[in-house]
């Protein structure tokens, strides 16, 4: 019906957050306050992964809804609303839509956790190597 609107809305929010983070990272770079974390993969890059999944998924899902006639080019744009089944549509958004957004976000969280673990291991190894050299 309109489940893609939930991850689509999340995509808008995460894009705004990404822009804010990018701005902050640029300011920090100018001031020379680059933290240890930023020397690896930037947070804005990691948020970009989530944006790509949410925007891409929502766009392709929206196309599927157009294909099945659930989204129409005229007002109110949703067949469910035109046919007076707004409650059914909201129920689907609250169940399937929310699950979609949660699953994509959890997958992204897993990706971030894996990449952070690799970065951490790399920096620990580099630290151990430099310690050995100093000794």
């Amino acid at each position, binding site marked *: 019906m309109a489940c893609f609107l939930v991850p689509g809305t999340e995509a808008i929010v995460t894009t705004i957050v990404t822009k804010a983070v990018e701005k902050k990272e640029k300011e920090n770079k100018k001031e020379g306050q680059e933290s240890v974390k930023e020397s690896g993969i930037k947070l804005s890059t990691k948020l970009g*992964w989530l944006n790509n999944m949410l925007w891409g998924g929502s766009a392709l*899902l929206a196309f599927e809804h157009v294909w099945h006639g659930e989204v129409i080019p005229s007002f109110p744009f949703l067949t469910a609303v035109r046919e007076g089944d707004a409650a059914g549509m909201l129920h689907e958004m609250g169940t399937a839509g929310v699950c979609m957004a949660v699953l994509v976000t959890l997958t992204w969280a897993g990706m971030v956790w894996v990449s952070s673990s690799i970065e951490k291991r790399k920096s620990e190894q580099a630290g151990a190597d430099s310690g050995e050299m100093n000794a």
Partner: protein
Amino acid sequence: MTLLITVFAAIIATLIWYKNAPDNSMRYGTLCLMYWGASLMWLVDAVFEYAELGAEYFVPAGEDMLNDAFLGFCVVALGMIIWLVILFVKDPQGIIKKTLSGNKA
């Protein structure tokens, strides 16, 4: 069928990204993540449909399967078009810029 085709597209895009990593000048990563995002969303859709239909979900009518396959290929094509637009707009290698400036000269 749409889910299956999108998952295969995501796997192929991921293999292409992996082969070219860490060089991301062609933005294969964007294509991968788009397909994986859509696949995850359709997976949720499939789980809900399975919960509703039960085992019947796995024996779709021939016509439905054909329509879903057609939709799947259209989705893959749309994903590639979106990726191409992003690639041309971002123009990471400056090819579009070079071509346009070459035409002006």
